[in-house]
């Protein structure tokens, strides 16, 4: 089942202890197409995390409505969020810090059991998803705390995949990992997105990841969405990206430096070293 996400005039207040922030999401309307890989970018405090939490029903909109496929969340008492949470898998930043069970298997089964799957079936799911995240089934009986940081993160993500979500939302899934570990996780996300057409939404600060993995980009500023479109059109206007005070992918940054210093003009915006090499050949330089 391929699921889309709709926000209709959604406003959200946020409250933690003494802090009460009004309109962390400010009248947002949005349609995320089914099966797309969307990157959410913006400054700290722009509302990226709140946007993700609203998709999972962890934050309830004060106005407007969120639709996940056929299910909806709005400001009304006694709505069942279980249907939403089952469909939207949420991977928090540093998800390994939520692991608690004494074996990897038990931790992965936690979600499915909460949603009423039988223990036998849950164990089967665990065997399947552990392979999906690139770990050996033999580690199911190990203590999760004996694994390395990158492995722990994959176990945590497996625990979300085990709930068989239709939508996967992730808050900086690569944060704090070394480049190899990060690449592995992001490639897995890409694979699931393409293979199972799992709608994927990822908050990130790394523009190189946006360039490499995402189909669409959402830019947030002060609780509003200031851009929502495909990656090509996002990177086509460098001045606009700078005006949002966002970074550029490494290759594009280098290309601009090169063009500025040498007066060479390349035919397109290059987001990968391969593209840059090809563009240099195309203009007949090398």
């Amino acid at each position: 089942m391929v699921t889309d996400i709709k926000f209709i005039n959604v406003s959200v207040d946020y409250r933690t202890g003494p802090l009460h922030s009004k309109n962390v999401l400010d009248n947002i309307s949005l349609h995320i197409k089914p099966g797309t890989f969307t990157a959410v970018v913006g400054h700290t405090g722009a509302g990226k995390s709140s946007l993700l939490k609203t998709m999972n029903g962890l934050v309830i909109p004060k106005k407007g409505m969120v639709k996940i496929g056929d299910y909806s969340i709005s400001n009304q008492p006694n709505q069942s969020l279980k249907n939403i949470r089952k469909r939207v898998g949420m991977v928090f930043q540093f998800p390994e810090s939520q692991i608690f069970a004494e074996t990897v298997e038990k931790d992965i089964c936690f979600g499915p059991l909460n949603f009423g799957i039988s223990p036998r079936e849950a164990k089967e799911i665990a065997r399947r998803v552990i392979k999906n995240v690139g770990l050996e089934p033999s580690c199911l009986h190990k203590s999760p705390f004996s694994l390395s940081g990158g492995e722990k993160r994959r176990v945590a993500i497996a625990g979300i995949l085990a709930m068989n979500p239709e939508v996967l939302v992730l808050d900086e899934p690569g944060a704090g990992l070394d480049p190899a570990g990060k690449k592995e996780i992001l490639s897995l996300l890409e694979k699931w997105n393409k293979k199972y057409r799992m709608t994927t939404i990822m908050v990130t600060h790394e523009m190189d990841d946006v360039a490499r993995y995402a189909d669409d980009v959402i830019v947030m500023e002060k609780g509003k969405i200031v851009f929502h479109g495909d990656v090509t059109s996002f990177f086509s206007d460098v001045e606009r990206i700078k005006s949002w005070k966002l970074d550029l992918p490494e290759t594009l940054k280098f290309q601009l430096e090169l063009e500025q210093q040498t007066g060479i003009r390349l035919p397109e915006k290059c987001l990968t070293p391969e593209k840059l090499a090809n563009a240099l050949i195309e203009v007949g330089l090398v």
Partner: protein
Amino acid sequence: MNKLLLGRYIPGDSVVHRLDSRTKLISAVCFIVIIFLANHWQSFLLLWTFTFLTLYLTGIPLNIYIRGVKPFIWLILFAVLMQILFTGGGEIFFQWGPVTISELGMINGLNAFFRFTLIIFISTVVTLTTKPVELTDAIYFLVKPLKVFRLPVEEISIMLTIALRFIPNLFEETRKIIDAQKARGTEFGKGSVFQQMKTLVPVFLPLFVNSLNRAEDLANAMEARGFRPDMKRSSFRQFHWKWQDSFTIGILVLLTASIILIGLYE
């Protein structure tokens, strides 16, 4: 706003904020003692005047203090009621079995009400206007003499300071883990007590593990930066005793003397 005000600091630059934390701590303790010496309406008038003057000087709106009393309201009413119903003496207005409503009972009830609210007001003043770490410093200073009894005062003080530093992190992390387990289908606050207890395991266990990891990192960082528990350290946070502090202590001495005198001669 969180209900419990005690223990929360509100930044500001009032006279009270700027007082030495030792002055505030000693004065508060002294004030609480004399509250219990007070027995006459003149004494309470003095205490209330002093309290309201202090509240005014903090520059923090009165309704915040009143909100600070609210969580204790049932406790206060209970104490007042006990006094009214079960102490006798003076003119008796009503009697039914052991229940007596008398003149003395009414007076005692009123006194109990005054004492409770005054204590809450004055302690709230201290915590609202003093950074927790400054309070720790003051406590450290006051219990320093106990080192003679081989009490590890310095270690306890640095422990308290670090605990204060990491409380916000702990709250933040708890909230995050609760959210994460909710997203995995946990429903908090539903079902029997036993079921509710069970939902807490996936919250407290990771919290515990993370805290241990954090403690190890912290210990490494402290050691790498040259921390040795058994060595003499200098202190960056200094006390600055000003004339305002001497003045405050002076006022408190006067206040104490007046309360004692009123008690003796009325």
